[in-house]
């Protein structure tokens, strides 16, 4: 445990920028929207910024990414394949604990199953993560319901906690410790640890008054979603409101569905692109030939909530798939962000 003065906390980002591409929460001047993006200048990053509209997912799992390109010489029957994996070292600075939890879900999903995903592995292998404890929640937060905040428990190299005039800096890895030592940060003691605990307790106590948008008491709902004991009518009510935009998947820190296409760049030349996809789209599960096992929109909706809220899926993430960030509720043109769906299901259970 170390300490750093508030006025110097960005020195950590600057130090990281020497070795890494630096990403962090940046408030766009024009739109006042916080985005978790690459910062050319560390000073653009604002540790006090509201929860970013776009989660850091896209740094490890980009929206639209080339994973290889190829060229087929038909005359000479020669194929030239060029893999295109991004292994640049990247530092995520000022990650909120919900988003860090999302990264951990992705780690377990992409790397911890039968096969490791090479594209993701390359993004992830040289990464430095600095998380930031939420000393107060935001309006849409419900991480206390999903056990993913307000403070990060694991997965960071360094974790920052605002203690007033200084930040407590906890090292979660050797890499983190090395950096703290290299920067010569002052050592913290148990009193600072206590101060952090108090700050976290206070943050939790503020949820009732500040985090008023969403609540998601997911535990009982998880049971129902896993066993499928939910009235069809509830899914229909949810399905009717879905305009099939895909937004919930795109903004979710733990949603990882992707599509693969080979857009042509020249005759017999193409890029293999990996792009975000969403299970809310009708074509998502349609097979060549037309058969679609998941045609009605309510089937597709129940699939997504199964992914976020079932024990079976939780086995893959080693926790629930929902990290309590509330973004799906922001972007949903229906009224079926995850917290609302949980409410609808609970309402039905109580009947």
């Amino acid at each position, binding site marked *: 445990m170390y300490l750093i003065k508030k006025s110097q906390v960005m020195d950590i980002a600057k130090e990281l920028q020497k070795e890494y591409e630096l990403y962090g929460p*940046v408030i*766009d001047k*024009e*739109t*006042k*929207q916080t*985005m978790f*993006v*690459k910062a050319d200048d560390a000073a*653009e990053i604002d540790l006090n910024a509201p929860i970013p*509209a*776009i989660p850091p997912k*896209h740094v490890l799992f*980009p*929206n*639209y*990414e080339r994973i290889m390109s190829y060229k087929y010489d038909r005359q000479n029957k020669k194929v030239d394949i060029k893999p295109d994996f991004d292994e640049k070292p990247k530092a995520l600075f000022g990650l909120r604990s919900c988003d860090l939890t999302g990264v951990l879900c992705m780690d377990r999903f992409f790397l911890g199953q039968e096969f490791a995903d090479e594209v993701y592995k390359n993004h992830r292998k040289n990464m430095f993560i600095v998380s930031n404890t939420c000393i107060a929640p935001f309006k849409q937060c419900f991480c206390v319901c999903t056990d993913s905040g307000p403070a990060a428990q694991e997965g960071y190299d360094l974790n920052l906690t605002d203690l007033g005039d200084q930040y407590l800096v906890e090292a979660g890895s050797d890499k983190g410790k090395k950096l703290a030592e290299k920067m010569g940060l002052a050592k913290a003691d148990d009193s600072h640890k206590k101060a952090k605990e108090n700050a976290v307790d206070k943050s939790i106590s503020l949820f009732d008054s500040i985090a008023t948008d969403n609540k998601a008491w997911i535990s009982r709902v998880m049971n129902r979603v896993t066993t499928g004991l939910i009235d069809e009518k509830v899914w229909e009510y949810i399905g*009717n*409101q879905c*305009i*099939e*935009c*895909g*937004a919930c998947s*795109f903004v979710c820190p733990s949603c990882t569905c992707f*599509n693969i*296409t080979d*857009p*042509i*760049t*020249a005759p017999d030349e193409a890029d293999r*692109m990996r*792009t975000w*996809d969403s299970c809310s*789209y*009708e*074509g998502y599960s*349609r097979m060549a*030939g*037309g058969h*679609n096992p998941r045609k009605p929109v309510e089937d597709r909706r129940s699939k997504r909530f199964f992914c976020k809220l079932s024990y079976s899926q939780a086995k893959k993430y080693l926790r629930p798939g929902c990290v309590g960030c509330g973004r799906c509720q*922001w*972007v*949903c*043109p*229906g*009224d079926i962000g995850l917290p609302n769906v949980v409410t609808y299901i609970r309402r039905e259970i109580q009947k």
Partner: protein
Amino acid sequence: MNYKSGICTFCGTGCGHLLDVRGDKVCGVFPMQNHPVSKGRLCVRGWNVHELLSTADKITTPLIRKNGKLVEASYDEAVACLVDNLAKYKKDNSEEIGFLASSRSSNEDNFLLMKLARSVFNSNNISLDSDPGHRNSLDVLNRATGMPGMLGSLEEISKADFLLVVGIDITKQNPIIGSELHFAAMKGARLMTIDTRNTQIAKLSNGFLQIRPGSYKVAMAYMAKVLVDENLCDVDFLKRYTEGFEQFSKTLAALNDDEVAGKTGLDVEQLKNAARDLALSKSAMVFFSSGISGFDSDTIGYIFNLYLMAGKIGREGCGVNPVTGINNLQGSYDMGIAPDLLTGFQSLSDKSAIDRFNKEWGVKLNTHPGKSICESSGKLKALVVVDHDETIVRNVNEISKMDFVAYIGSYKNDFVNYAHVVLPVATYAETDGTFTNTERRVQLAKKKLEPAKNVLPAWQLIAKIAEKAGAKWNYASPADVMAEIVKLTPNYAGIAYDKLQAMGGMKWPNGAARLNIESAPRKVSFAEIAGGLSVPLASEEYPLLLMIGEAQHYWHQNNLMKKTSIPLREYNATLLLYPKGYVAISPQDAKDLNVRDRFTVKIVSPYGSMEAMVQVTDKVKPKTAYVAYFVDDMVTKFFLEHKDVLKRGEDATIPVRIVKV
């Protein structure tokens, strides 16, 4: 930051988005949370716009046709070729030169094209394609109120407590407006849908009346009659702000319940309740489609008159709101893309307006109204087409016979096959430009990346053409163009690029959220109704009423969608199932015809026939059928035969017979 703000290029809603721009590539898109219209939402099209902007299907070099083949050329050569060819047909009134503009072009690009047509080539033959829908809406609203645009606004949806959706599958066509309506209903507004099909918004409504195709105006007239009969008109409002009520109400007297029930297929009690809900609400809005599937003038007139009688125009949370399907359809009419209009709906026959234009442009404009391409009946010899996104070229027989066709656009499309000269222009993300959404909101989409090597933005290219033709134009930027637009267009007064920098732009006139009824120079008049209340009737020979519409993923023929992968996949989901296109019929009709889903049938009308596969669905009522037109044959071989029917509106309903093949 690599996320650059902009306005979505697809439908008339005008949602705000941020494009993830890295160098010369667009790698993603994200919604703009604080945008006044979209508030952080996008639809399936909007969420995948980066795929369109990354397509390899762009035009990157000028082309000239030589010996039947298009060969690469320089801009100078191609522009010279265009100007020389048009010069051959230039007269004082160049009846042989036509311009086909696009409702996707920015206001600046459209304005300059209009200026090029009228002031450089003396041609008033400038139009959008053959969709008359929005023009009908604007004509009715302009004649009655002097405001050629949405009378209410999207931002006031949350302030209305009665919302009526008439004949528009809004969650598919303009999903984010559909979302706003849904949210308003969730918060307690009464949402009512009248449609021929059981659409998603119908499912989300408090009330749904499934009406027989072509009879919307009967329902609207009847609701108006209910207001009269039950003394529910806003009498003070009518006296103070309107004229023509007596005359209009007299025309309603003859309507009787049986006739209405027979024509609409509805229980009149339901219509009565809807009329009462409307009258007793504090504020009310109505939304209807304004495009290919838009209404005829009479239906729009009845809708308008109904709302006027209820006093639901010109007040907070009120309005008669046509919804545009394409991003700059409203702006295109604002820019005078019509044979008889100058900017801001000023008529070509308005002498003071003409004087202003003559003075500003230093010319003497030809004031003979022109003709749109579908009215030209073979007279056109040379045609300039700008930025069309349709794969299906309408009036293809006429176009292929023309001596000269030029295509100016960002993306490849089928017009290229008929063009003698092809000129590339930058995409909407590669230059500054303003777009006017369905609620009259003029928004600036700023340049976010460089166009492909040497490709010019349309405003520069059009100026280059004008210059080559001898005109002296002097624009340093689109902002200069807007300054000239504002000078010539009373509606656009007060708009300027420096004010448009802020998110959300500015609505004309003067940021008005709705028609300002207090300061109107004259009283609002009741819309004149030209025809009777006849409805298209099925007969023994043609027993089904066929409706025409668009569906979410078959959107304006989808030339843009086809350049993406995820929206394309969604498009293909149905197109693969129904490769010849589909006609939706009810399970009962399917049984009578002895067909199952995906069986091929022939649709026969008095004027033509086409083949399609049936989609059996309970979304349509028995004795009605629905086609989403997105297959080449459907448009060129069938609908063109019905050009006149489509033009008349009548909810574009055609009596047909369906036969099993």
